[in-house]
């Protein structure tokens, strides 16, 4: 257990103490006890920065299940470190923010912070572990903590709905990912991520490679809310805003990005990867930004915006993966997409985090997030307005903020995508920049909506439940810090360049090995490049669309709700449950007869087919005993009696006939030289008949045969089948006697070693006395059971 | 009677002691001598000499077996006769026996002899209701039972 491990699980450990703290120190907001931890962790992870930038990865291992190759190995390299810093950094800010956001009196803070800490620890685990299984474990933990956080206000129907949805989708992805991991394991024989990366070249052609790739991408896509799995994210907005800011924009949803980045060196050699990651990313980018515009809930807009931004990063990673195919290309030609991805990742965390916090402030101070009820808040909340403005502009890709820089690089990457001379990119590559541009227009549009619909225009206090005013200073600290980062990075982007370089080294290690080094320089001015024109086009088109929004917004209504993915999910879930109920009800009739029919049918079919397929029926007459006439007669009597039971009309005759069968069976025991059996059978038969008679006093008379003919015919067929199968197997089993019975031993030793002469009885009390011991136990239990059954009559409804 | 038998056994054992020989043969001899002694001193007992009763029992059995065989044959004839001209019925049989086992014995004997079967006993144990396959003469049937079986049983018990 190294310090690094401790750092990762420290949030989990602290989580254990939170309820205690909450209980004992109820006067102070629990958040304050929490805050030092992420800050300290942030500082701690900063200390790794030097190593990471120097290209060194720190590795610590802690044995968990080494026998299965599962170890809690932690590896800090550029990629991991970047995420760790995001998690702890934004975590600190969110905790600080939440202290002011969540009221001490009304909320169950202990639960909230426990979940939050769980999440923080889990997320650190995801990005820092070097073992797939451990990664998966933490991955699921993030899903669960997200589930709990979304359902934090669980008295709300929507919260529960959102929680369930997010969990279903992300856990589904998680499981798919687990499948992928296992497939990878089968190819590589290791669960270690770094080892897998090192073996990447060897497994490309493996038959399991593509399935593994798809499975893992399913995990990444669901987590990162890629189309069509994005539907959970908007509903996750039911969580308290700090949670949305933290989990659902800055960190958890980026776990998928992390996974894709992490496994790029493994899978990128497969063209499918580029297409899937790039294509799905682009689709998500477009769909997210397009859908964001129609929303009126600020958080809804932000949710879709997050989706679209995640798609953007994803598509960049996909396109950037092409760099691995062309190690001979000049530095950064395709890799620029990866650079853009990493850079945008950082930027997105800053501006989107701040925007969420701003929306939280607006919600907190006005009581609503509906832009139709908001407006003109600029004057009331000037600081908030400023923050929102900067954040939105950065998101829209306007200079001089950091969003502009990454947006430019994004265009570069997309433009270069056309030139990838592989996988039909020649023909369809043009789609990439086109879609990217269209999506950017919508991005611009919704960014503007966020700022201007909320803060400018007519102030409508009458639509608000509370009187709005500027937020308390504590609540503003966090967004201010984030926004300053937006500005600082916007102005001095090369501050983060070393970090990006180290991250790229993690994503594209083969290039590093091929002699490249990533030299990231980010420029504000590229000259009059196509990217610049594209940006200008975005702005112009965006403004136009904003102006004429009422005219064209109708197209959103053109898409019927029932074809939307959401209703697909809802209907699907409902239909699955209803269908399941229907199916189950259809065969679980509650009638024992149907169950027996299933069982007997299965009996007949499975054994019959096996008999047939295995050609198992043999008939060997060589060692059968001779038949005497009286035996035959006895057999006929027995059979007649057995069949007449079926026809018995009164219960007494049924019992008498059953007795007749029993007595004939005991006669068989006589004929076949089994005196003990005959004795026992006789007595038991008599006692049984007596029991039947005893019970008859309490039972109704045998009703008429109510069954109709079809019912009877069905029964008859099944019964004949059962009888036939039993007979056939008996004949073959007897014919394929292969060995002498072990009972010769008994015959020899009954007198010598057990001092008895009746072998059956000696077997019962001595050789196999154990059977007897428990057989009488069975009898004893039956006696107790019957006694209690008759004596104990509990009234209904006490238990159920 | 039980006392007499017991005494006889004791005497037999005493004989064995005296002879210091514990074989069945000695026992039988001892028993025989004891029997003799008992016979001679029978006047000292309130009850009859028990061997008499034994004789009565044997007689009863003999009567019974005779009846059994005879009436079995009768029933056989009845059953195998081509024409079924029987006249069955239930008749009441007043009895003088009192003890349970006597009644049991009587009814068993009645039942075992073909042609008659005890259907019920009256609540006061005074009457047996007997089903007969062929009641040719009611009084005949009653008196034959009373004369043969009941008397023989009385012999045994009294």
């Amino acid at each position, binding site marked *: 257990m190294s310090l690094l491990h401790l750092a990762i699980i420290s949030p989990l450990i602290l989580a254990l103490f939170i309820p205690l703290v909450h209980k004992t120190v109820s006067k102070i907001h629990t958040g304050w006890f929490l805050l030092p931890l992420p800050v300290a962790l942030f500082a701690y992870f900063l200390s790794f920065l030097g190593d990471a930038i120097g290209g060194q990865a720190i590795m610590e291992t802690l044995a968990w299940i080494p026998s299965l190759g599962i170890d809690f190995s932690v590896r800090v390299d550029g990629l991991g470190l970047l995420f760790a810093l995001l998690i702890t950094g934004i975590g600190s800010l969110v905790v600080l923010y939440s202290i002011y956001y969540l009221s001490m009196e009304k909320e169950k803070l202990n639960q909230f912070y426990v979940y939050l800490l769980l999440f923080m620890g889990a997320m650190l685990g995801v990005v820092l572990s070097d073992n797939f299984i451990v990664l998966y474990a933490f991955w699921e933990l993030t899903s669960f903590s997200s589930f709990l956080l979304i359902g934090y206000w669980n008295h709300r129907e929507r919260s529960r709905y959102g929680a369930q949805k997010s969990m279903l989708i992300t856990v589904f992805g998680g499981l798919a990912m687990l499948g992928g991991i296992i497939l990878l394991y089968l190819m590589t024989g290791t669960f270690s991520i770094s080892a897998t990366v090192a073996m990447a070249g060897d497994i490309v052609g493996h038959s399991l490679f593509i399935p593994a790739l798809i499975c893992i991408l399913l995990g990444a896509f669901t987590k990162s809310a890629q189309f069509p799995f994005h539907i959970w994210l908007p509903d996750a907005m039911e969580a308290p805003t700090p949670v949305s800011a933290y989990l659902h924009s800055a960190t958890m949803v980026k776990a998928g990005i992390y996974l894709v980045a992490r496994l790029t060196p493994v899978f990128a050699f497969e063209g499918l990867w580029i297409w899937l990651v790039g294509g799905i990313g682009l689709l998500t980018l477009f769909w997210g930004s397009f859908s964001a515009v129609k929303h009126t809930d600020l958080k809804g807009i932000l949710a879709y915006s997050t989706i679209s931004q995640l798609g953007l990063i994803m598509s960049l990673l996909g396109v950037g993966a092409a760099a691995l195919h062309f190690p001979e290309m000049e530095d950064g030609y395709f890799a620029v997409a990866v650079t853009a991805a990493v850079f945008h990742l950082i930027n997105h965390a800053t501006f989107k985090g701040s925007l969420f916090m701003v929306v939280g402030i607006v919600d907190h101070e006005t009581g609503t997030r509906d832009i139709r009820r908001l407006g003109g808040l600029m004057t009331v909340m000037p600081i908030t307005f400023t923050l929102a403005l900067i954040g939105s502009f950065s998101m829209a890709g306007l200079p001089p903020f950091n969003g502009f820089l990454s947006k430019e690089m994004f265009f570069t990457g997309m433009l270069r995508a056309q030139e990838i001379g592989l996988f039909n990119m020649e023909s369809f590559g043009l789609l990439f920049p086109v879609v990217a541009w269209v999506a950017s227009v919508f991005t611009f549009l919704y960014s503007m909506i966020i700022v201007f619909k909320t803060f400018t225009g007519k102030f409508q206090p009458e639509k608000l439940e509370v009187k709005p005013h500027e937020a308390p200073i504590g609540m503003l600290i966090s967004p201010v810090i984030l926004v300053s980062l937006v500005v600082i990075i916007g102005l001095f982007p090369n501050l983060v360049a070393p970090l990006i370089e180290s991250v790229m080294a993690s994503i594209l290690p083969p290039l590093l090995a091929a002699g490249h080094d990533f030299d990231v320089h980010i420029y504000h001015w590229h000259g009059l490049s196509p990217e610049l024109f594209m940006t200008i086009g975005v702005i112009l088109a965006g403004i136009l669309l904003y102006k004429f929004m009422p005219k064209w917004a109708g197209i959103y209504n053109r898409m019927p709700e029932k074809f939307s993915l959401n209703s697909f999910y809802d209907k699907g879930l409902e239909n699955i449950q209803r269908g399941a109920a229907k199916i189950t009800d259809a065969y679980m009739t509650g009638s024992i007869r149907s169950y027996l029919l299933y069982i007997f049918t299965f009996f007949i079919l499975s054994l019959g087919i096996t008999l047939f397929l295995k050609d198992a029926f043999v008939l060997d007459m060589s060692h059968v*005993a001779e038949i005497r006439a009286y035996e035959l007669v006895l057999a006929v009597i027995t059979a007649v009696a057995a069949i007449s039971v079926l026809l018995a009309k009164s219960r007494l005759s049924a019992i008498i006939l059953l007795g007749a069968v029993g007595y004939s069976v005991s006669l068989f025991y006589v004929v076949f*030289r089994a005196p003990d059996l005959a004795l026992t059978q006789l007595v038991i038969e008599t006692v049984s008949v007596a029991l039947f008679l005893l019970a008859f006093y309490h039972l109704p008379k045998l009703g008429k*045969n109510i069954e109709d003919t079809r019912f009877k015919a069905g*029964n008859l067929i099944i019964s004949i089948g059962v009888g036939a199968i039993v007979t056939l197997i008996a004949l073959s089993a007897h014919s394929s006697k292969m060995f002498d019975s072990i009972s010769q031993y008994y015959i020899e030793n009954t007198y010598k070693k057990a001092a008895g002469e*009746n072998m*059956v009885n000696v077997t019962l009390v001595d050789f196999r006395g154990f059977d007897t011991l428990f057989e009488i136990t069975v009898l004893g239990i039956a006696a107790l059971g019957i006694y209690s059954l008759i004596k104990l009559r509990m009234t209904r409804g006490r238990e159920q | 009677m039980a006392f007499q038998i017991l005494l006889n056994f004791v005497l037999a054992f005493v004989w064995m002691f005296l002879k210091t020989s514990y074989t069945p043969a000695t026992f039988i001899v001892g028993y025989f001598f004891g029997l003799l002694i008992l016979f001679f001193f029978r006047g000292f007992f309130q009850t009859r000499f028990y061997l008499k009763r034994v004789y009565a029992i044997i007689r009863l059995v003999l009567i019974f077996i005779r009846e059994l065989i005879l009436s079995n044959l009768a029933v056989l004839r009845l059953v195998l006769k081509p024409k079924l001209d029987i006249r069955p019925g239930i008749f009441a049989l007043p009895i003088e026996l009192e003890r349970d086992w006597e009644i049991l014995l009587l009814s068993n004997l009645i039942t075992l002899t073909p042609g008659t079967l005890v259907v019920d006993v009256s609540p006061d144990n005074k009457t047996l209701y007997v089903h007969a396959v062929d009641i040719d003469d009611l009084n005949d049937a009653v008196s034959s039972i009373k004369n043969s079986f009941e008397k023989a049983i009385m012999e045994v018990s009294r």
Partner: protein
Amino acid sequence: MEIVMSLLIGILFMSATYLMLSKSLLRVIVGTGLLSHGAHLLILTMGGLKTGAAPLLGQNAESYTDPLPQALILTAIVISFGITALFLVVAYRSYQELGTDNLELMRGKEGNE
């Protein structure tokens, strides 16, 4: 003989199955009785029939019938007796409580009242 016995066992199983598929609880119980008879005879048949004298050393025979199946059957007989008894009581108690011995009327969707 084994062939005859196998056929007989088949018939026993057939009757048992038919009875168990009927609606009346009592018939079902009778069916289970037949079923166990069939099963017991089967073991005996499978052990080989009439391969020697009864398995008593007092018989002083050269060969004896296989005693092991007999011991097994004995155990099975006793067990099935216990079960039949319990079943019977369950049947009568449920007739008391549920007021019917018709199994079709006893469905009760999967435990719902």
